[in-house]
C-alpha cells in the first residue's frame, strides 16, 4: 500500500511516464504479445482455485476437531438414545466412514455442486446458502455504498480542512464509528428508530403482510423491481435501512480515516500543486485528480471491508432477525452442523477470493502501471 502511494505521488496516473513510454515503445510495432494482464489474471485464478481447495481442507479438519458429538447435537437427547434412530442417522449422513473418505466424498460431491445436507435443517446446504447469501449480500452492498459515499466525503473533507474544527469533528465521528460495538448499536438503533420514533420498520427483510417477490437473484429489492412489485420494493428498502445504517458505521469510520490519510498524502504531490497553479479547483480537482490518486489504498480497504461485511454480520443479523449468512453460520456452529459450517467456510472463502480478484482487476483499471507490471 505504501509503495503504491509513493509511486502515485511521483507519477500520477493521468500522466505517468510509463504511459508515454508505451506510446513510443518499439513494442507497439512488434508482433502482438500475450497480454500481461491476462496472464496475471490466469495466475490469480489458478492460485484462487488452490486456495479454495485449502479452504475446504481447513474447514473440514477444524469442523471435525471440534469436541462434541454431532449426532447427539443433531438428534437431541431423546432420539439419540434410540439405537435404531442413531444407526439410521449415521448411515444416512455417511458418518461411519473414516474421515479421509468423508473428505474425499465431500470433495467429489462438491465438484458436482452438492455441498451435503445440513444436519440442522435437513435441507441441502447449497439450497440453504442460496437463500442466506443473497440476504447478506443485499445488506452488505447497501452498507458499502453508504460507507463509500459518507466515508469518502468525510475523509476528503477532513483532509482538505486539515487541522480545522471540521477535521477534528470528523476524526471524532470516525473514532466513534470504529469504537461503538455493532451489536449494542443495533439494539439502540432498533429501539430508537423503530420503537420510539416509529420511522423504521420491525425486524426481518419484509413486513409480515407481504410475500417475498419471485426469486431471481435472491435480493428482495432487485427481485421486487424485476417483478414490478413497487410496494414490496419500498418495503424491502425500508427494512434495509437500519441494518445498513448500523453496519456502515464501522466501515464509515474506517474509510474516513484511510481516505483522510491517503488524500493528505496526495495533496502534497507535485501534480496536485501543478494543477492548482494552472487554476484547477473544486470537484474536478477532487474527483479527477486527488481522489483518483488516492484510490488504490482506498480500494484495498473497501475490498476488505466488503468481505468483512459479508462474513461478519452475525450479531447484527440476530438483532434484526435477518436470515443471512451470519445467522446461518451461527446456528450451524452452535448445533455442530458440520456440513453447514463447511458450506459457510467455503462460501466465505470464495467471497474473499472473489473480492481480492476484483480488487486486483480494479487496480489495473485505475492504475495502468499495474497492467504492465
Amino acid at each position: 500500500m505504501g509503495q503504491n502511494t509513493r509511486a502515485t505521488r511521483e507519477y500520477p496516473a493521468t500522466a505517468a511516464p510509463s504511459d508515454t513510454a508505451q506510446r513510443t515503445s518499439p513494442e507497439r510495432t512488434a508482433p502482438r504479445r500475450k497480454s500481461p494482464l491476462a496472464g496475471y489474471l490466469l495466475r490469480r485464478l489458478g492460485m484462487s482455485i488452490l486456495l479454495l481447495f485449502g479452504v475446504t481442507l481447513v474447514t473440514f479438519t477444524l469442523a471435525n476437531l471440534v469436541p462434541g458429538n454431532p449426532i447427539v447435537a443433531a438428534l437431541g437427547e431423546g432420539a439419540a438414545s434410540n439405537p435404531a434412530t442413531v444407526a439410521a442417522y449415521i448411515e444416512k449422513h455417511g458418518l461411519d466412514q473414516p474421515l479421509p473418505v468423508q473428505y474425499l466424498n465431500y470433495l467429489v460431491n462438491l465438484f458436482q455442486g452438492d455441498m451435503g445436507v445440513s444436519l440442522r435443517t435437513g435441507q441441502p446446504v447449497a439450497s440453504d446458502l442460496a437463500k442466506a447469501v443473497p440476504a447478506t449480500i443485499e445488506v452488505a452492498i447497501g452498507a458499502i455504498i453508504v460507507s463509500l459515499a459518507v466515508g469518502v466525503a468525510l475523509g476528503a473533507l477532513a483532509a482538505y480542512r486539515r487541522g480545522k474544527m471540521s477535521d477534528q469533528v470528523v476524526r471524532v465521528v470516525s473514532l466513534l464509528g470504529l469504537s461503538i460495538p455493532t451489536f449494542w448499536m443495533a439494539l439502540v438503533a432498533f429501539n430508537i428508530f423503530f420503537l420510539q420514533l416509529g420511522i423504521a420498520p420491525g425486524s426481518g427483510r419484509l413486513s409480515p403482510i407481504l410475500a417475498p417477490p419471485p426469486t431471481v437473484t435472491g435480493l428482495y429489492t432487485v427481485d421486487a423491481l424485476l417483478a414490478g412489485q413497487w410496494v414490496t420494493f419500498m418495503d424491502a428498502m425500508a427494512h434495509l435501512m437500519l441494518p445498513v445504517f448500523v453496519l456502515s458505521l464501522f466501515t464509515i469510520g474506517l474509510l474516513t480515516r484511510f481516505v483522510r490519510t491517503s488524500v493528505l498524502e496526495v495533496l502534497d504531490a507535485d501534480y496536485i500543486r501543478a494543477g492548482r497553479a494552472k487554476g484547477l479547483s473544486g470537484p474536478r480537482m477532487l474527483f479527477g485528480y486527488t481522489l483518483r490518486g488516492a484510490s488504490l489504498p482506498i480500494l484495498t480497504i473497501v475490498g476488505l471491508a466488503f468481505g468483512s461485511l459479508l462474513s461478519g454480520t452475525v450479531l447484527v443479523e440476530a438483532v434484526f432477525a435477518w436470515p443471512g449468512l451470519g445467522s446461518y453460520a451461527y446456528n450451524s456452529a452452535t448445533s455442530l452442523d458440520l456440513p453447514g459450517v463447511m458450506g459457510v467456510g467455503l462460501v466465505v472463502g470464495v467471497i474473499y477470493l472473489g473480492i481480492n480478484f476484483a480488487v486486483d482487476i480494479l487496480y489495473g483499471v485505475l492504475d495502468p502501471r499495474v497492467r504492465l507490471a
Partner: protein
Amino acid sequence: MRTKIRYVATAIGLSASLVLVGCAATAPEGGSGSAPSSIVIDTAFTLETGDPGRNYVPTGYMVSKALYETLLDFAGSDESTPVPGLASYEQNDDATVFTFTLADGRVFSDGTPITADDVVFSLNRVKGMTESKANFLMEGIEVTKVDDKTVELSTATPSLKLPALMTNPSLAILNSKLVIENGGTTDNSDKAETFLNSTSAGSGPYILDSLDFESQVVLTENEKYNGAEDIDFTRVVIRSVSESATQKMNLEGGDSQVAVDLSGDQVAGLGDGVNVFSTPSAQTIFLLLNQSADVAGVTANPEFASAVRYALDYPALLELAGAGSEQATGVIPPSFLGALTDGVEQDLAASKAALAASGYAGETITLEYPNDYPVGGVSFTPLAERVQSQLADAGITVELAPAPFTTQIDEYVNGREAFSIWFWGPDYADSANFLPFAAGAKVGLRAGWTAEQDPAVVELAAAAENATSMDEREGAFSAFASALQEQGPFVPLIVPGSNIATADYIDGVAYNSTWTMDIAELQSK
C-alpha cells in the same frame, strides 16, 4: 455555480428518496401487520421439517399442531387428562389394548374423509421411519385396523401413557392417499418429507402457505376444517426472531402480536398494551452428582448428594429465574401426575452431617454446565455461580467449568460428568417421561447410578410404568418422586417459567409442554 446547484439538487433528491422509503417503512400495505384477521408470532426457531412424523422440536410442534390433528388432544393448558381429538377411546382393564373410534364427518383439507386407513398409515409411517427423531414414540405399539372408523392400538405391557402419547403432534394423522402419492411409505424408504415441506396434508384448522426454515412459516385458514376450533385469525405468520430483545421490541412496536421466548425479567419490564401469560414450564433444571467412583471419586456416594441437597438456598436460586418460575419439588414438574407438593428446604445442619458421613475432605469439585443454552430464560452461568457460593458456605469447594452446549452434552449423555447442571423436559405430556431418572435408566446411568445400586427405586419405577389404574399410577409416581428426592443423585433446582406475551387484544393463550401453545386457540377480544 451551476455545478454547485447540481450537487445541491442531487442531495435534495437523495434525501427525499430516503424520506419516502422511511415513510414506506411505517406503513406497508395494511399498516404494520396488525390487521385483525392476521397475526404475527415471533419465536426463536427450532424448525427442521414440515413433516410432522419427522419433527421433534418445539417450533415444529407448534406448526404441526396448527396444521394437523391427532387422535387425542388436551383442553387448554390442562395436560392431566387427554380429551378426544379426531377420535375417542376406550381401554381394557390391563391397559394394553386401546380402541380408538374416529369422529363422524371429519375431513382433510382437500375434503377427503378421514378413515382408519389414514390412522394406520400415519402411525405406522412414524414407526417405520427409524431415522425419524420421533420414531421412539411408537416403540412397542402395534396398530390394527378394526373397521373404517375403528383402530386398535396394543402394547405388550400396561401402558397408561399411550393416550398422552397420542396427543403428540408427531403422531398426527395424515391424508394417506395424498402422502403415498408423494412418496410416503411406512418404512425408511419414505420420501414424502419434501412434499410435506411445501404442502400440508392434514385436517387442522390451518393449511401451509409457505415454509422457510430460516425466516418464517405462513399458515392460512383451512376452509374445509370441520373440527371444534373456531379460529379468529385466518392468516398466521410465525417468524424466526432469535434475539428475545428484538421479540420484545417487535411486540411493543406493533410489528408482531405474540412473543414466545421472553425471559422473566423482560416480561416484568413490559408496559401497557401487552398481556403476559406466565406459567411454570415443564422443564426441570437440576444438579447431577455422579455415583460412579471412576468418574466422581470420593463424591460418588448418596451422602454427598444429600449434603449438596440440604446446603442450597432454593428461594435465592429462584430469584434468578423470574416470572412464572417455581422451585422444583422433584424430578416430576408441578403440572404432572405424581409431582410432589413441597420442595427441599435448606438445612445446613443436615448438610453438615451428610458431608461428614460422605468422607469429603475439602477436595475441589468441578461443576460443569452449558454456558450458551438458557432454559426458560435461566442462564446457567449465574446459576452455577450462586450454587458455588452457597456450597462454599456449607464447606464444599467448587470450581466452575462452563462449555458450549454441543460440547457439554456429549459428556453428559455418556455419563462422564461428576457434577453438573442440566435440564430435562418431557417429550409428551405424561409422567412416564420422568422414569428415565430411575437407577439403571437413561438419565440415571448418566449419573453413574446403576440398577444394582438402588433396586428399590427400580421397583418403584416399574410399578409406576406398569400401573393399570390412574389411582394406582398417581401413588406409584409420587413414591418414585419421593424416593429420588431422598436418595437419588439428582438435586432438582428450578422449574423455569414460560412467558408468552401478546398484544392486549389477544386472548386464549394456553401453555402446553409439547407444542408451547395452540395457535388455533388464540382469539381476538
